[in-house]
């Protein structure tokens, strides 16, 4: 298939479909972030997300802001790598595309490892999925985002393996990389919001 599939709007249908999917995902994450914010101030038992004194007893907060800042930086850099991979694909520069695609995959996996470390640490501190409302809403929201990153990594790996079979880039490959890029940047903007609301805001 080498021709673009245009809708009555004049926009490639597949690109339009990706944007509609991302728009619907906005609502999904909106609901998850709302749930987290509602429960954050109403946690009946420890552990708590931030430092707290309850009945004269001090409880250390679980959230590790410096660590999450590092993982946020990693995801931001993966977005830069992805946009350069798209640039390479659009300019028929296979070597550049492969290099930056590989960098995006490595950075995406690094972000997931940060998340695995954080989840393990929280579990070790006694925060399970059913410990309290903070645990339930936090694991659901960040876990759902992590699944998005994982799916993105799988898509990028499949595109990278596909590119090894070619000596040049066709118009279709460039389009697939661009569409995968849209998904990847969306995952990044969702994390920008989660990082600010969950980790940086004290209440």
């Amino acid at each position, binding site marked *: 298939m080498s021709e673009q599939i245009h809708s009555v709007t004049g926009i490639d249908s597949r690109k339009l479909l990706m944007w509609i999917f991302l728009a619907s995902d906005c*609502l999904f994450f909106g609901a998850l972030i*709302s749930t987290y914010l509602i429960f954050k101030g109403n946690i009946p038992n420890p552990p708590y997300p931030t430092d707290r004194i309850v009945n004269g007893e001090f409880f250390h907060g679980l959230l590790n802001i410096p660590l999450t800042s590092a993982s946020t930086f990693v995801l931001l850099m993966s977005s830069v790598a992805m946009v350069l991979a798209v640039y390479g694909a659009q300019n028929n520069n296979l070597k550049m595309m492969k290099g930056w695609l590989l960098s995006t995959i490595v950075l995406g996996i690094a972000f997931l490892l940060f998340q695995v470390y954080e989840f393990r640490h929280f579990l070790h501190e006694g925060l399970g999925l059913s410990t309290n409302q903070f645990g339930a809403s936090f694991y659901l929201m960040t876990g759902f985002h992590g699944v998005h990153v994982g799916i993105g990594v799988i898509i990028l790996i499949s595109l990278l393996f596909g590119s090894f079979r070619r000596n040049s880039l066709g118009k279709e490959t*460039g389009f697939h990389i661009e569409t995968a890029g849209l998904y990847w940047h969306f995952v990044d903007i969702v994390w920008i919001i989660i990082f*600010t609301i969950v980790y940086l805001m004290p209440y």
Partner: protein
Amino acid sequence: MNNEHNTDNNHLTIKQYLKIGLLLTVITFLELIISYIDIGFLLVPILLILSGVKFVIVVAYFMHLKFEDILISKIFTFAFVLASCILLALVSLFIYDPSISNR
């Protein structure tokens, strides 16, 4: 092919993408510093503005929404505004009636 020049396919040059990446890093670092400073009620609005700037930069330049058809912008903006309204409505509802969360 000169990578530093804009072609029909490219909306920005490599140098411009790298500058945007640097700007995003600086804003994230700034957010981190501000979150440790005691600036009272200003903290939340400042953090929201900074993360909003990052959001708009990524959507406009990395996702190329600035250069796309207006229909795509309308679809995405509508969904984002709707999601924000749902968030505000739910959070406001629970703030004004905390007993709801205990039911």
